[in-house]
Structure formats: structure tokens, C-alpha cells
């Protein structure tokens, strides 16, 4: 019998619309509550940081991955943690980082948060399961 009420951390390493990783991670996360589990944190690393691109504008007949992540955050109260080192290199900056680097607009917004790798290690240590969705 599988244990009940587990907390999950997901690591998403695949870019949206390039690989299936984001879709798989979302489908998995959305299926957790039916079995009494929940996703506590999603950590975006490698090209996975592009999932947080605030100006993501997919065609209307395609799933809007940013909206799906926001909905997941609302429903399961999970943190959406974006590796700051991977994100800034790739042009994903929140308001304060945008200012600091002399850009007029942020490209990453709440509920996504820029965080260090310490948060990934914390999630791995403190939540019951870590599942990696890779490109």
C-alpha cells in the first residue's frame, strides 16, 4: 500500500514548447491531489527556467503553460522556484534584477520567484519525493 499525503518537489529541466517535460510535469502535478498528495515546490533549472517567461504568448489553440503553472500554484499552493543563475544568464529577470541590469521591463513575475540552488537542495531534503522532468 502506497503511503498517503506525501509532499512532492518537482525539478523541471525542459524548455516549454520545445520538449514534453513541462507538459509531463504539469500532468503529473495535477494528478497528485486525487491520491491525497500535493506538490510543494517546483524548481526550474537548465532550460526549464523558460517556463517562467512572463511574456509567453502561445497560439490560442495551444495550452498556455504559464497559465497552467499559475493555476497549479493557486490550487496546490506550491512554490514556483526559478534558479537565479540559470535564469539571468538566459534573460529571465524579475523587477529588481531587470533594474540592476539596466532593463526597462521584467521578464519574470510572481508567483515565480528567482532563488538559489539552496532552495533545490532544501526541497530535496525536506519534501517526501523529488521527481525530475528532463528534456
Amino acid at each position: 500500500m502506497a503511503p498517503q499525503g506525501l509532499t512532492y518537489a518537482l525539478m523541471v529541466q525542459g524548455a516549454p514548447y520545445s520538449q514534453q517535460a513541462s507538459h509531463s510535469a504539469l500532468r503529473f502535478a495535477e494528478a497528485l491531489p486525487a491520491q491525497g498528495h500535493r506538490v510543494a515546490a517546483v524548481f526550474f533549472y537548465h532550460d526549464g527556467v523558460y517556463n517562467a517567461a512572463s511574456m509567453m504568448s502561445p497560439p490560442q489553440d495551444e495550452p498556455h503553460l504559464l497559465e497552467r503553472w499559475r493555476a497549479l500554484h493557486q490550487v496546490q499552493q506550491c512554490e514556483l522556484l526559478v534558479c537565479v543563475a540559470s535564469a539571468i544568464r538566459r534573460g529571465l529577470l524579475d523587477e529588481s534584477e531587470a533594474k540592476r541590469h539596466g532593463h526597462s521591463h521584467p521578464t519574470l513575475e510572481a508567483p515565480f520567484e528567482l532563488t538559489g540552488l539552496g532552495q533545490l537542495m532544501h526541497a530535496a531534503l525536506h519534501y517526501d519525493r523529488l521527481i525530475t522532468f528532463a528534456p
Partner: protein
Amino acid sequence: MSSKSILVIVRHPPHGSSWVREGLEAALVGAALGQPPTILFSGDGVLALLANQQRGALGQKGSAAMLEGLSLYDVEPLWYDHLSLEARGLDVSQLMPGCQQACIADMIARHDVVMSF
């Protein structure tokens, strides 16, 4: 503090992508938090352990320098899967110092959490 053990598996070669650097950074941060993970190189990941590497075309700090620094943070030894090494026609004499042979199945079974890069 949790007593969970973490295994970081690196399975991609260095220089051509950022996987090795990102895996090593995760391991270093774990060590800085007082929970040094075990690090294991398997598949093409063993190529990150080759001696005599230089700064890469990505213009970023080569992973070899980071690897040499891991022992300062108690992330040691550098475990490698010997079958992956053999499959690539290599032996341990071609690797940097500090490498040690591992059985990957045992490694996985002995850790609570596995992170792949």
C-alpha cells in the same frame, strides 16, 4: 536538519552543454549547506573526469576546475561507473586524481534522493 542522503548523477559530457556545470553547482551548494551529496559520473558523464581539459568554447569556467574544488567541500571521492569508462575505451589512468570506481546500482540503492544531470 534532515538526514536524507542525496546522490547527484552526471550523465552528460562537459563543454558541449551546461549539464556538468549545473550538476556540480547543485552538489557544491548542498555541501555548503552542510549536506555534501555523493557525486557519481556515469555514461558520457565519465568524460568530465578526463585529465588535461582546458577552458571550453562556452567561455565559461571549465568544469575541471570545479571538480578539483569539490574535495574542499567534502564532496569526494569523484565516483565513476567503470562500465561506462570501459565502454569508451578509457581507464582510470586517464582520469584526474581523486576518482574512484563505483557500482551504480548500489549507489542508487544507498541514497534517499537522486538528482540527474
